[in-house]
């Protein structure tokens, strides 16, 4: 396997990180009833 595996895993990692961070933070904020 070539270096493409590293590129792919890196891209996946960034997307997972963005997804879990944003949804987690949104749920947390929703729970605390902020913002609205």
């Amino acid at each position, binding site marked *: 396997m070539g270096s493409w595996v590293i590129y792919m895993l890196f891209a996946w990692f960034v*997307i997972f990180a963005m997804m879990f961070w944003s949804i987690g933070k949104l749920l947390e*904020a929703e729970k605390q009833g902020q913002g*609205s």
Partner: protein
Amino acid sequence: MEQQRDQWATKIGLILAMAGNAVGLGNFVRFPTQVAQNGGGAFMVPYFLALFFLGIPIMWVEWVAGRYGGKYGHGTLGPSYYLMARESLKPRSALIMGIISGMVAFAGVTLLNSYYLHLIGWSAAYTWFSITGAYFGKNTGQFFSNYLSNHTEVFLFWGITIVTIAIAVGRGVSKGIEKWVKVMMPLLYIFAIIMVGYVFVLGSPIDPNWSTLDGFAFIWTPNWAYLKAHFATVMLAAAGQIFFTLSLGMGIIQNYASYLGPNDDVALSGIATVSLNEFAEVVLGGSLAIPLATAYAPKIVPPDVLAQGKNAALAWIGHKFGLGFAYTSLPNVFVSMGQIGRFFGALWFLLLWFAGWTSAIAMYNYLVALFEEDLGIKRNVGTWLVLLIYFILGLPVIYIGLDKYVTPLDNWISFQLTLLALIDIIVAVYLFKPDNFWEELHKGAYVKIPTFYKWITLIVAPIFLLIPLIGTFKGFVSGGIPPTVGAVIIVMFIIGAIETYFAIKKKYGEEIEKNEVLIKV
């Protein structure tokens, strides 16, 4: 003059609705086609740049614009952008900006749906073909071509799709559909994850030199030489795909966001919807059709093209079958499962059909709302009017076909979505005034957005948008668009402009006449 409209009960409800809307054929059908047509790893570099420098900021711009318009009772682009442009321009000049925005959005949604609804119809057809085992034991590329040349069959499955959508919209059964979405969309995600696992271990099902892993290598190995040789085209394709998949550049996001409360978060919600969609697109959509097309290429691609290597073989499938790319590669995986593959194939294409169908309902609803809200046309009349537009626009897809109609129109859609994204920045950021935009973005925000993103939105994004727009415009006007496609585009622009003009004039006619602001916001 703030107006009270229906609002989303919870932010998570809105996010799930938008994620459900975003997940669909853009991820599993259009994305792999674009990757194959644009040099694999050559496409992924500008794709990720477009995601961070265009997708995220434009998503914020459209959420802000939608929420702002909703505050004054507008869910459509023309009147909202008229109001925003009026912050810097006199009413008559603002009217021009409103008309341009509304015109491009209207043409975008209608033109996009003219072939998007066909892709949904193809999914319905492949559900049936899986049940009957019609493509089992056949060359799936040839099978797809034969299907498209059988106009009666294509008409039937497309007809079923648009009529059921019209009925669902006309009867206002969106609540009932939401219950199905809650079951079907997680099922699509789970099924796709299992399929990705299967694709990784599938290896080389028919020829040891052609493996699914080679398909992953095609996507994830940066191809600088190809990118350099086709710079503007690949940039436009990447930006267009980001906008298509995130439903940006067509007025849909603004319409959703117009139902937000004036102090509801848009900053974090924007990132959440982008990341959910990117998971479906890059992680799931990117791991299915292309690896499968690579592994089964010896079955689909002519020997002389195969001899040129994997990149050439995938480019050949991408150009020969266009948006049919996924329909020529995915069925093979179900064939490899034996008879049980009929069940899984039917389930997969049914889920895909449903994902597309629900997205199409959202866009259909937008057009009906546009006629209702802007022009006072009754909902049931609007429903039939949209059906008529879709019907007329969908006919050339069947009778003119993939090469001469769908592919050039789809390429134009990339251009048009990118164009509206530029208009978004001009109107909703520059004319609305950058400080107003930044302040609006942070109203009720759950996160503080780093200031450098303001500069990305103001400087980097417009340059990023202008490069492919300028670089490809000449190609479009000097024969890149067949005359029939060009004529349809012009007609939709004219209808869009007229519709938007009356929509704005209906509410702001007097101040446009006097060319001074009478209705304060």
